[in-house]
């Protein structure tokens, strides 16, 4: 009998084992939903799968009576575009500031402590300020996400930049590199995969701030919808919406990981 640490599942059983928890959760849901609905057909807490399917069909394929939109897609589009704009701006800030802090000692001395302090401000605490200053429109929501994730990306990239071996930086100078050339040919290309890592790590908080902002002031969006239908205990909307958000987040993470291996093959080999 081999030790447990040396027993490894084969390829097929790895796949099977990885879907097992999902199946178990679904089975548990079906069981308890059925049990509750038997006891009280009007139960709203754990709606039957058929109810959920019907509701989602309505949300995805039928026009809403009031707005004329297909709500699921309007909500998804609104949320994803907010997220995309915020993450793009955060990435730009992360690269520009992170590289500058990592490469230029004078900027490091000036900005690094400031960014470190900024990153400790709880973003939700400044949300009221954002609503007061920027109004209830898109700007406030996007800014909230940026405040939430940009300082992390800036600091992460500054650290990754500073971690580049000094030997490389010196070598580049002996090959005639100016500061500009050093940044564009040596540092920046090596920071792209790091940026993707930082983005993947900040996806969770980006969604958190997106949903928080949408919950408070919005007219469409995945977070808005969840908090809107909460008033009617509409679990048949909330549960699939949460699952949909999870699928979206997972897909974004997967796409970023794919991009990293496809576009930056050199970074996934041995260090």
């Amino acid at each position, binding site marked *: 009998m081999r030790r447990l640490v040396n027993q490894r599942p084969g390829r097929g059983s790895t796949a099977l084992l990885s879907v097992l928890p999902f199946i178990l959760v679904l089975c548990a849901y079906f069981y308890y939903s059925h049990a509750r609905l038997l006891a009280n057909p009007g139960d709203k807490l754990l709606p039957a799968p058929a109810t959920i399917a019907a509701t989602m069909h309505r949300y995805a394929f039928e026009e809403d009576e009031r707005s004329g939109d297909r709500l699921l897609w309007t909500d998804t589009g609104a949320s994803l575009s907010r997220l995309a704009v915020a993450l793009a701006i955060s990435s730009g800030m992360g690269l520009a500031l992170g590289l500058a802090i990592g490469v230029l000692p004078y900027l490091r001395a000036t900005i690094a402590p400031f960014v470190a302090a900024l990153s400790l401000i709880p973003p939700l605490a400044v949300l009221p300020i954002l609503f007061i200053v920027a109004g209830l429109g898109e700007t406030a929501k996007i800014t909230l996400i940026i405040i939430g994730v940009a300082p992390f990306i800036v600091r992460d990239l500054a650290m990754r930049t500073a971690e580049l071996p000094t030997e490389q930086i010196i*070598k580049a100078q*002996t090959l005639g*590199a100016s500061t500009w050339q050093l940044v564009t*040919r040596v540092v920046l*290309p090596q920071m792209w995969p790091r940026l993707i890592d930082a983005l993947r790590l900040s996806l969770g908080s980006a969604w958190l701030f997106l949903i928080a902002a949408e919950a408070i002031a919005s007219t469409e969006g995945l977070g808005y919808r969840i908090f809107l239908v909460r008033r009617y205990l509409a679990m048949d909307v909330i549960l699939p919406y949460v699952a949909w958000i999870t699928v979206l987040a997972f897909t974004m993470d997967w796409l970023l990981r794919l991009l990293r291996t496809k576009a930056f093959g*050199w*970074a996934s080999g041995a*260090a």
Partner: protein
Amino acid sequence: MTQVTVKHLWKEFDGNVVLENVNLQVDDHEFVTIVGASGCGKTTFLKMLLGIETPSRGAFLIDGQPLPNEPGPDRGIVFQRYSLFPHLTVMGNLLLGLELQGSPILCRLFGARRRRALDQARELLEAVGLQAAADKYPAQLSGGMQQRLSIAQSVICEPKILLLDEPFGALDPGITSDMHTLILKLWNMNKMTIFMVTHDLQESFALGTRVLVFDKVRVDAQAPEAFGATITFNIPLKGHRSPG
């Protein structure tokens, strides 16, 4: 012509004397090897030549001109490791120096200039025996191949001085003699002056036209930091070696 002169050089770190009163005169196209116990300041000496450390007193002169206080294209460097760019292929690593010096803003060469640079890189790649690996990334190369590439990368910019900081220290002993042949070949091709720090006495005599031994002449048992090392032996060896 490149003459390196060192005059009354001292280097201290916070009252800790590392080097004291180093004087040296090196002619054009010499191969200077530097040996000494660890901590005797031979790497500090190389760092000052490189421009990343400044002398506390005294001066380095290249052809009578004081050394710039930052690294530059006139002095190439090969470190023991980490001096390659992991995001560039072997060819990209080799082209980088030409691109940096030929194109200040875009750092890329186009058309006829790119073709000329590629030819130059291919020629050198062949000289260091890496033509088959041109499209690989540094992480896919063995330690010996990485060092050959790193040397070629410096040599392609035709520096007046090439600095080698224990370049073969991390390699298998079997590869070292190939590397010796290679460095001597490149040294003869490019007519540069080489300074090489090594801990291998045999290597220093096999390669050098001049061997420098760094050691402390004065030792105070109560205050070991009070005195620094200097060049205790400066041994000119007859004749420039040819490769092989």
